[in-house]
């Protein structure tokens, strides 16, 4: 690859790539993100490559394996351009038909089309699918257009033009001013204004300065950073380059979880390609600006997503947070000014520079601008990645884009912001999703996880789940987080086992407040949110567990019993065979579950086709 030396070279390269791509009559875009890989997209890809080779179509049809498209529920996904035909749940055995009908003869295969559950109609075009139609996909759309391992793809969609633009003008204050005007706020959780962070890091004394991209995403059920880094690593690199120029940093790190092998691989390839093109390295484009990026793989500690713990881990120390009375922008990595931003924040930077601050500031609410990616998961029709304007109501995200509850259920709450966020009751679903509104409701935007829960979920059990996660992931350094959280778990376990008292509930509340106010780092400070918010919105569930000794959602094992209704029972023996502990017996034609030895695994309940097994 020849080095790029100026803007002209970049434009020439971009035009060359566009021309090269235009010789193909059709492009098959296949999602090769981690989600689709798990549902078997790689087999489809190899099959497709083989089939095209056999039919000698390789010079007419281009296959592009891209990053995550977002509609993970329906994977493996395949989009055929220029007609925008959308196939879902594609299997290797479908490939020959796709090639012979759709690619050669423009015939649409009905069986692979998406069916809208609301109208039961088949939808051919991807853009017409409600899940996509109602989103504002700026970052995620780029994922579909580029092969993450091919820098030329990124360059042909205007990639690196923002960096070249700011490098030519070389006015760092202007960049910071532009980012400030755009109103971009950190996408990692706290929502700190990015421009102000950059400014304080630029003004801080010390050299060299560092830039870190935080890709240590550890929230259960959240994977937007992974998808961006996997699918569009060059946007992150370009954002970091722009940031480095604005701040005056010389070195950059991408701290990524080792559990994201594809993200590590793609980021590595992307850095290599950027270096080859002369976009990273010493004296870039012959200017005085030098910048390099290294990848550091995290060992999987949740707490290492916290900035000071991350920096300690990067230094080779134990990943433990320290007091943040002095900001990391002044004294961070190796006691030097360090600017840390989340993957999504960095990836947003190039489009702000290209389209102007006003373009970005137009979207969103008064204090929260732009778009944000959310990972929609849980008991909902359409799980996947959703990119919407800040300030979109929860109702729109959950019902319009997410397709609402699973069959016959009713949505009860949504947990936003992962273990540090809170549960928001269905009554508040008109709430706009922005930093302030969610914080006021006792939750947070966080990195953008959204776990939807329906009525079959016990909120006390949810709080217990998150507490268990946090007790495991607390670093154990400070008393409030280590002891406080374990005490909270102790109390909540008592409550779910029917041993709780109202005094304990008050103590739980008091401990939660102490932990949230007095802890050392953000992990401890936000850790009680799931408990505090569930007490706030679902106090009656806690009270039912304590006073009536019952679990309204019939989840907490100590408070439920399984019984067979012999009037409904058809004596099919299915439960008898399924029970792993052999506790179901038959006496005089009556089927009885021995409640003393029953482990309440629920297998009999799931097996019974006649709803003869009742939960009390």
């Amino acid at each position: 690859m020849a080095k790029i030396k100026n803007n002209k070279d970049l434009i020439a390269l971009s035009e060359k790539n566009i021309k090269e791509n235009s010789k193909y009559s059709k492009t098959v875009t296949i999602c090769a993100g981690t989600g689709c890989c798990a549902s078997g997209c790689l087999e489809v890809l190899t099959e497709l490559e083989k089939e095209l080779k056999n039919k000698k179509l390789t010079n007419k049809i281009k296959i592009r394996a891209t990053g995550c498209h977002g509609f993970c529920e329906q994977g493996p996904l395949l989009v055929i351009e220029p007609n925008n035909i959308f196939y879902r749940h594609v299997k290797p055995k479908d490939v020959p038909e796709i090639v012979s009908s759709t690619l050669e003869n423009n015939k649409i295969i009905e069986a692979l089309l998406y069916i809208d559950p609301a109208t039961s109609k088949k939808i051919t075009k991807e853009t017409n699918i409600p899940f996509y139609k109602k989103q504002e996909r700026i970052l995620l759309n780029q994922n579909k257009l580029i092969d993450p391992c091919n820098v030329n793809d990124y360059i042909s969609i205007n990639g690196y033009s923002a960096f070249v633009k700011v490098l030519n003008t070389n006015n760092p204050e202007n960049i910071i001013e532009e980012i400030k005007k755009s109103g971009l706020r950190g996408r990692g959780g706290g929502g700190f204004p990015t421009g102000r962070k950059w400014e304080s890091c630029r003004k801080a004394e010390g050299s060299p300065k560092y830039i870190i991209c935080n890709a240590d995403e550890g929230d259960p059920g959240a994977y937007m950073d992974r998808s961006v880094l996997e699918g569009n690593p060059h946007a992150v690199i370009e954002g970091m380059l722009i940031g480095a120029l604005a701040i005056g940093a010389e070195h950059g790190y991408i701290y990524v979880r080792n559990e994201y092998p594809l993200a590590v691989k793609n980021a590595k390839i992307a850095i290599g390609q950027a270096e080859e093109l002369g976009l990273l390295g010493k004296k870039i484009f012959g200017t005085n600006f030098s910048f390099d990026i290294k990848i550091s793989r995290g060992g999987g500690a949740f707490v290492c997503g916290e900035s000071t713990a991350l920096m300690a881990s990067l230094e080779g120390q134990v990943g433990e947070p320290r007091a943040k009375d002095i900001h990391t922008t002044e004294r961070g990595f190796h006691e030097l000014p360090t600017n840390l931003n989340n993957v999504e924040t960095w990836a947003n930077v190039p489009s702000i520079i290209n389209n102007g601050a006003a373009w970005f500031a137009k979207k969103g609410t008064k204090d929260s601008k732009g778009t944000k990616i959310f990972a929609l998961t849980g008991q909902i029709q359409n799980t996947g990645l959703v990119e919407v304007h800040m300030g979109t109501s929860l109702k729109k995200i959950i019902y319009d884009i997410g397709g609402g509850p699973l069959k016959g259920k009713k949505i009860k709450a949504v947990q936003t912001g992962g273990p540090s966020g809170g549960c928001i009751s269905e009554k508040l679903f008109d709430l706009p999703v922005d930093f302030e509104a969610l914080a006021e409701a006792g939750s947070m935007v966080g990195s953008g996880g959204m776990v939807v829960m329906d009525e079959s979920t016990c909120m006390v059990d949810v709080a217990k789940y998150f507490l268990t996660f946090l007790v495991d992931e607390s670093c154990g350094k400070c008393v409030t987080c280590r002891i406080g959280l374990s005490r909270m778990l102790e109390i909540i376990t008592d409550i779910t086992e029917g041993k709780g008292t109202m005094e304990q509930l008050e103590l739980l509340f008091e401990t939660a407040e102490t932990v949230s106010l007095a802890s050392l780092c953000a992990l401890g400070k936000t850790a009680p949110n799931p408990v505090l918010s569930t007490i706030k919105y679902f106090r009656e569930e806690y009270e039912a567990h304590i006073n009536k000794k019952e679990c309204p959602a019939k989840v907490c094992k100590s408070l439920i019993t399984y019984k067979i209704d012999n009037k409904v029972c058809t004596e099919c023996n299915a439960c008898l065979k399924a029970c792993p502990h052999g506790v179901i017996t038959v006496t005089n034609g009556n089927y009885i579950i021995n409640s003393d030895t029953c482990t309440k695994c629920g297998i009999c309940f799931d097996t019974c086709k006649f709803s003869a097994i009742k939960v009390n």
Partner: protein
Amino acid sequence: MSDYVNITIDGSKIKAIEGSSVLDAALEYGICIPALCHMKDVTPIGACRICIVELVKNGKSKITASCTLEAKEGMVILANSAKIKKLRKNIAEMLVAEAPNSKAIQDIALRCGVTTVRYPFRNKDCVLCGKCVRVCDEIWQSKSLGFVGRGSERHVALPFNVRPDFCKHCNNCIDVCPMTITPCPGPMKKGEEALCGLCESQLYMAEEVPDSCVDCHLGESFCIRAKN
């Protein structure tokens, strides 16, 4: 010559040595902010959270540990607000439930106003204040002790659980440990842990002595008598 910065703690204007922590500056002036993991001349880690104070800035207050907070010109600190007292009491309650067998912790709990312990006692031997680890590392430059594990599994251990050759046998780790001060009525038996409250009478006498306490309203945050 050290430079000084002016800070305000609970309304008293004091001069703190530049670069010193708020806690050190307060103790220098006889303003009692209780602390467990704090030690003179070693790096503060902010682990015990007993020394929390309110830092008031632009009309907003932020709660932070005073041992890790560097004194800066014009800082306004509330070391004894109702909010801080309540939090401190709760933290002391957690600590004493964790290790009731320590006189130092019983003492702190008593002074922070803990009268009943609502958490079940755990009777642990260590509250991970990290004094031993830091004294070994920083004063003796030995690094024979360290923290191992994460979260509830975190504990202090020797490298591979064997006393290393570079251990200087100074026994400082034992001297500084808050668990090694002999408890007044002797070690508590398992299942019989309680708030002993016996040091209350001695504490009263100690505070009458002007040398150890300025005995002013500032002592409130850590004084049994001013509570009433």
